[in-house]
């Protein structure tokens, strides 16, 4: 190669280096960004579904939180090997499910999100659903990477940390989201009387029957 060409190459290479932007990571699934809205109505600015990122459900199918939009959701974070609190938490959610009228039940979805993604594979989640007899027409179990789990937890005020190789200390929290994904109510603790939460769900169902113009 001629000297001139080498110089040109060097110059181009240097120009390339000097103008190199601050390193951008590959689009990380957990960075919360406003993704362009697929539906005509823009997602409420208070919605939890602004969290983008890829999740898998109990069938191993890829999904996003945005897919939960359009239905009232009762959601809790848990992990499959949890011996004490999580089984009781799921029980509390089943109590809520039973407490709804059949008409209401058809309009409400139940979601369990694992905080132990390395251990709780989709297959393991499917196993939990089977063990507890969860009606998969209404129930979804989700798995996402740790940064996404942290993001979701932070939005719900859910706190957790590892206490050993297999266990976690975590909040006992059941969250009720409206169909826009806005956090409306939380049931804190275990074995709580479902009446208040059921009243909240009932209120949401009634409100969402109103045409969009006349809701708050």
């Amino acid at each position: 190669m001629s000297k001139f060409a080498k110089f040109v190459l060097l110059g181009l290479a240097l120009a390339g280096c000097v103008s190199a932007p601050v390193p951008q990571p590959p689009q990380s699934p957990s960075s919360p960004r406003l993704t362009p809205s697929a539906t005509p109505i823009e997602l409420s600015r208070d919605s939890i579904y602004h969290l983008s990122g890829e999740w898998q459900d109990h069938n191993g199918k890829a999904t996003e939180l945005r897919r939960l939009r359009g239905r009232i959701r009762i959601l809790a974070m848990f992990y499959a090997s949890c011996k004490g609190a999580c089984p009781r938490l799921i029980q509390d959610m089943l109590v809520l499910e039973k407490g709804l009228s059949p008409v209401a039940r058809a309009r409400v979805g139940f979601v369990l999100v694992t905080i132990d993604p390395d251990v709780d594979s989709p297959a393991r989640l499917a196993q939990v659903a089977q063990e507890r007899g969860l009606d998969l027409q209404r129930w979804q179990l989700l798995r996402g990477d740790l940064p996404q789990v942290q993001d979701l937890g932070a939005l719900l005020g859910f706190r957790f940390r590892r206490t050993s190789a297999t266990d976690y200390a975590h909040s006992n929290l059941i969250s009720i989201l409206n169909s826009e994904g806005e956090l409306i109510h939380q049931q804190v603790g275990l074995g709580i009387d479902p009446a208040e939460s059921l009243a909240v769900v009932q209120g949401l169902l009634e409100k969402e029957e109103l045409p969009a113009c006349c809701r708050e």
Partner: protein
Amino acid sequence: MSQDRLLSPQWLSIALGLLLIGCAGPKPGETGTDTPAKAGSSAIQGEEVAVLTDAPNVPPPIERKHATKVIVNLEVKEAEAELADGVKYTFWTFGGKVPGKFIRIREGDFVEFHLANHPSSKMPHNIDLHAVTGPGGGAHASFTAPGHETTFSFAAINPGLYVYHCATAPVGMHIANGMYGLILVEPKEGLPKVDREFYVMQSEFYTRGDYGRRGLQPFSMEKAIQEKADYVVFNGSVGAMAGDNAVQAKVGETVRLFVGNGGPNLVSSFHVIGEIFDTVYSEGGTTKNHHVQTTLVPAGGSAITEFKVEVPGSLILVDHSIFRAFNKGAIGMIKVEGEENKDIYSGKLNDAVYHGEGGAIQSMPDGKAPTAPVAKSKEDRIRLGQALFKQHCVACHLDAGQGIPNVFPPLAKSDYLNADPLRGASAVVNGLSGKVTVNGAVYDSVMPKLQVSDEEAANVITYVLNNFGNKGGEVTPEQVKKVRK
């Protein structure tokens, strides 16, 4: 913003959830009492916002004969104010002052408590009211970050005079900085009518400098642990209830004192010089004692004292652990006006010479606080500067002023300092960053500015000039003031 409103029902639900947990039943160790539902039940009528007052004032007695829902709005604020003459302290307060606001409710009331933490606060805070039956006395539910507000509710099941205080870790420090007050739960039948009611709260303060040392004094954790109080005061500062700040009464009136002790450590031997307590509600409960001279007020506890003032003059409130009164500030005053009553107290009747055996003349120490020492000579400066040097400079420049090569310049035989001592003064009061050459070596570091007065800076520089092989000389506060940015 809708999201902020959104969170409030969420927190209220959490708080109510907590309340339900707390009220699940008597815990081990607790004697079973009436369940809260019974006390508060159908009797609640209406709603009102509590009137809160600063010491020494007390909200008016409760007239209503039924329980109600009371809304209490209390704001936590960290604020600098005067602890004694020339002595400033950063108080952490409930309601802007120490002690915190006086809350007055009635047995059976249902309280909705809003605790706000001012955005300028550095710390999160919460509240433990000794009147609350529930986890932490409300502390769990009221844990509040700066710039936020939390809400919780409780039923006032027990009557009595109760202390409240902050219970955020480290608890001792939060209390020591002034986070306490009183909440009175009047019994259903009310308290007997009196002419005057006052709020008096004793507490201690632990400062880095000794009693009277001027300037902004930081809290001293060491002294607090050793229970070596520098200040023992009524109502948050020396003289808060004395002189012009004394409270008033008239001859023939009945007076009731709601006395609290925020601690954090010391028990009070509460006494009013010139009076006897006709009635004492021991420890703020319902047991009455009569004809009491001095009553104990536990740390984190209270007492109610009642007496009738019979003669004019000044009644002096003290903690009868007497050095606290005369040397640390535990003095308050009630000025009583009206007609003399020679049958009860005549004053001095006669003064005659008495020839006794021996007997030295006793002199009463006067109660004025000593003022901070000011250097009157170069020797003074050097002496005062030595303590400051140990406190502020040794960490980086080391105890022989040798500094650390390439990191912190030496003060010993320092050509930089000796050529112009005011450069040293400027470094102390303004900080210094960037390259400096000292004794032939270049240093490029950061010296933060020290929170010292002109006097203190002059003293420490003069000390350094006259030690470690430096040339001697003196720097005055006026010179320091000129270089201060």
